[in-house]
């Protein structure tokens, strides 16, 4: 069980949306994390300063939150490393192959009412729900 946190989740979501708006205002780009992360990898096209800064900012966030709140950031991750390697390969390959992930399609694309992003979001939600159902209730 995890605690239902509508207020914190709504506020955190609004911050994510604000970051997407600011990236569009400043750089004219979609805040898609899979696209940003993949631009860190060779072959480098169009400069690495932006993606590098963005990912370093992301990675600093839990420490900033811990400094501000004085409370540790909770994270429960599977310790099955083979499972996490498989999950990482699928997430990395799938997000680049499908041109986006939760941020690019799920937030920015839907906010732009993009048909491709609506379809992608419906597909990855359905695939995620089906996977959890199989893992927890069929095989589990």
């Amino acid at each position, binding site marked *: 069980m995890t605690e239902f946190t509508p207020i914190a989740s709504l506020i955190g979501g609004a911050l994510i949306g604000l970051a997407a708006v600011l990236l569009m205002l400043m750089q004219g780009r979609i805040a898609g994390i899979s696209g940003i992360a993949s631009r860190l990898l060779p072959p480098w096209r169009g400069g690495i300063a932006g993606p590098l800064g963005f990912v370093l900012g992301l990675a600093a966030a839990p420490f900033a939150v811990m400094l501000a709140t004085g409370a540790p950031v909770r*994270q429960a991750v599977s310790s099955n490393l083979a499972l996490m390697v498989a999950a990482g390969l699928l997430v990395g390959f799938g997000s680049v192959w499908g041109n986006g992930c939760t941020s690019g399609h799920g937030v920015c694309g839907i906010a732009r009412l993009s048909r491709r992003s609506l379809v992608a979001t419906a597909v990855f939600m359905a695939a995620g729900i089906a996977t959890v159902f199989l893992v927890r209730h069929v095989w589990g």
Partner: protein
Amino acid sequence: MTFLINLAIGLLLGTGLVVSGMSDPAKVLNFLDIAGTWDPSLAFVMGGAVIVAFLGFRLVLGRPAPVFSDAFQLPQRKDIDARLVLGAALFGIGWGLGGLCPGPALATVGLGAPGVLAFVPSMLAGMWVARRLADGQGDR
């Protein structure tokens, strides 16, 4: 300048991920577990992010250009192809296995959980392979 802008926006987005609870795979997996210990919090994350991005994009895209770039770079494609659907499905399966998508994984890599440390390099490898294959198909 590009580096600093991206650093600040990445920090903001990462803070949103942490505050919203999306950086905790347990919450993500419980959101996807509609037949079990369902935690609807992530619907509020997405709702908050999409509402802010929808309103913000309308304001920002009314400008002739972004502040630090010549033009807005928006995806132009409208067609739904097999690649989009396959990529989103693979991404969703990986998301359902590990409870991590690219933003939360990169945002929490510094917390040092073994599962995240296994996930991130695998994700980057998956992205690299997908980009190589996509280049081989003559796009991007």
